[in-house]
């Protein structure tokens, strides 16, 4: 067991910070091709299959880029794409569940959308956009056509489901980390009753409980990536991260009060995205059901 980041992993995260500072446009609520291109050139979008790195390193990239509000579907690009598509992974990947048409993140101009279609997954190149979706959840959304595409083979549906959980959990960890940190910082500065709001025990305990959730989601997700998205580990990460997303987004707004609802106050940038990410794949109840059926398969029912 070793819970420390390696020097290489620390250097990767530090470089990502620099790249985002240099290349990201200030408002990440759109498809940020400059940022995606810069991350790609630096090799940080392709760590999943790198001999000296792997899925855990790719997961760390997803956490960090998400926390920095990068304008790309980083989980789909860094974790799901490499797991499903092999070595040639385009930058703009969408994920969708069967049903036609579907609302997909960054759907306006995707290179490929990977569709969960029962036991198999399908990849549709350059899917047709039917129209943009008006939304205020931090990502550009579009309605896209899901007909056709090529099958990704036997077992690909299951693989997509497992990696999608890990990808979204990693995005949630990044977003929730910053939402919590931002809120704790604000409450430490904001004074009422002659003292910092964050000095009140009632608020401290809410923040501390959120902190436990975020740390729990972080390590469950890293562990799931390390297991290469095993069924039980990925559903634990997915379910726990979704619980974290719900708690953090609602509690951070509760704790910041009315200022938290304003456009000028940055909190919504993380909390709105948390909603979009947590609702994208299987819901929390389905994830926890998957934990149970993975741990206690029907075979135990004899005797």
């Amino acid at each position, binding site marked *: 067991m070793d819970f*420390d980041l*390696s020097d290489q992993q620390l250097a990767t995260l530090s470089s990502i910070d620099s790249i985002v500072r240099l290349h990201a446009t200030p408002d990440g609520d759109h498809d940020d091709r400059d940022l995606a291109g810069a991350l790609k050139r630096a090799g940080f979008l392709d760590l999943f299959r790198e001999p000296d790195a792997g899925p855990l390193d790719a997961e760390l990239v997803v956490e960090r880029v998400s926390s920095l509000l990068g304008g790309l579907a980083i989980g789909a690009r860094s974790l799901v794409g490499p797991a499903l598509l092999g070595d040639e992974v385009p930058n703009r990947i969408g994920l969708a569940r069967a049903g036609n048409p579907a609302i997909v993140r960054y759907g306006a101009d995707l290179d490929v959308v990977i569709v969960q279609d029962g036991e198999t997954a399908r990849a549709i190149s350059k899917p047709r956009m039917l129209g943009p979706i008006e939304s205020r959840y931090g990502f550009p959304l579009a309605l896209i056509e899901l007909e056709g595409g090529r099958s990704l083979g036997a077992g690909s549906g299951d693989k997509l489901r497992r990696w999608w959980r890990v990808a979204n959990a990693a995005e949630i960890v990044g977003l929730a980390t910053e939402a919590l940190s931002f809120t*704790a910082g604000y409450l*430490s500065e904001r004074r009422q009753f002659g003292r*910092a709001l964050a*000095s009140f025990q009632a608020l401290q305990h809410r923040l501390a409980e959120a902190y436990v959730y975020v740390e729990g989601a972080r*390590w469950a997700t890293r562990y799931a990536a390390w297991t290469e998205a095993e069924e039980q580990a990925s559903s634990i990460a997915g379910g726990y991260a979704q619980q974290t997303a719900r708690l953090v987004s609602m509690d951070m707004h509760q704790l910041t009060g009315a200022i938290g609802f304003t456009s000028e106050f940055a909190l919504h940038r993380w909390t709105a995205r948390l909603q979009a990410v947590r609702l994208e794949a299987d819901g929390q109840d389905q994830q926890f059901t998957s934990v149970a059926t993975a*741990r206690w398969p029907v075979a135990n*029912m004899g005797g």
Partner: protein
Amino acid sequence: MEFGWAPEERDYRRDLRKFVEAEVPKEWIANPRQRPVVTPDDRTRTLSFNHKLASRGWLTSHWPREYGGSEASAWQHLITGEELWSVGEPRGPQYMNVNWIGPAIMRHGSPEQKEYHLREISRGSVFWCQGFSEPDAGSDLASLRTAAIREGDTYVINGQKIWTSHCQVADWCVLLARTARGEDPRAGISIFLIPMTTPGIEVRQIPNYVEVGSLHEVFFTDVQVPVSNRLGEENEGWQIVRDALKNERVGAPRWERAARMLDAVAIWAQREGRFDDPALVRRLGEAKAACEVARLLAYRVIDARAKGISTSGMASVSRVATARADRLVGDAAMEAYGTRGLIAGSAPDAFWWQALAAGVAGGSYEIQLNLISHQAMQLPAK
């Protein structure tokens, strides 16, 4: 970053499990509730188990060689805790001796204290209890009032301890008592190592719902203790205990016992046809997730401790997650069993009451949240 076990750690767990299967009653393994050492028979059985464990070098494996250990890794010690706590803790209260009382004696004890106590602990021959809490000093432990007044080469101790476990069979008590009164209550506390047979000590069992024989009051009336039984310097007890308990901060490996209880409950529920209830299945899954998250957060503390890195705040994160897991498992177990869980001695019955104690014993859930606020998040005090 690496989440796999080393081959020697896997081998140790396998060997220990074989030992447990041979030495621990099957009923304990099937129903992993805490089993306090109450009767003389309990004591005899526990001592026998400890001697066997010690003879294999597994009781104090992480201790230095000079004190009877083999300098095994923190991970081996964790495995010992997980495997034994999860079958009802057949070591009895040995975890306390091994985890922190022994190490505190190593660091602060006199040569005579080291010679005697470390030998006895590493052999598994001695039971200790811990005289900390008082009726008016629970979470606010520093406000304790049990007084030790020095008279020549002796201290005379008067006061009362409460919620003490294992003291009905304990040979020794590690006692916190006040030796000075000043502005900072933490500055006037000393530690005493006291034989429980000393005249003036009276133990009364407190009837309770968690486990028969698990809670006591201990009264000290003009108890005379030689100065040589003080551990460390006078008035420095608070610091010594605080340092020693850093080794104990993740607490008992409740996540492992909770996970095993959950396995037993889920398999029972399947056989009873209860997996037709999607709400119950979901609930069991949520509890399983909480156990595994708590495990990872505890392992993170063990890893930091093994590397000598400060675990400030991290251990409290682990404790909160563990208490939550215990409660979710207790609750899910009761839901699964329904009214059958109300039968005395049923698996959920014992577990549910003990899960309630997870957020109370050894530093409450709320104290852990305070520590996270201050140590991990650095939230302001005012």
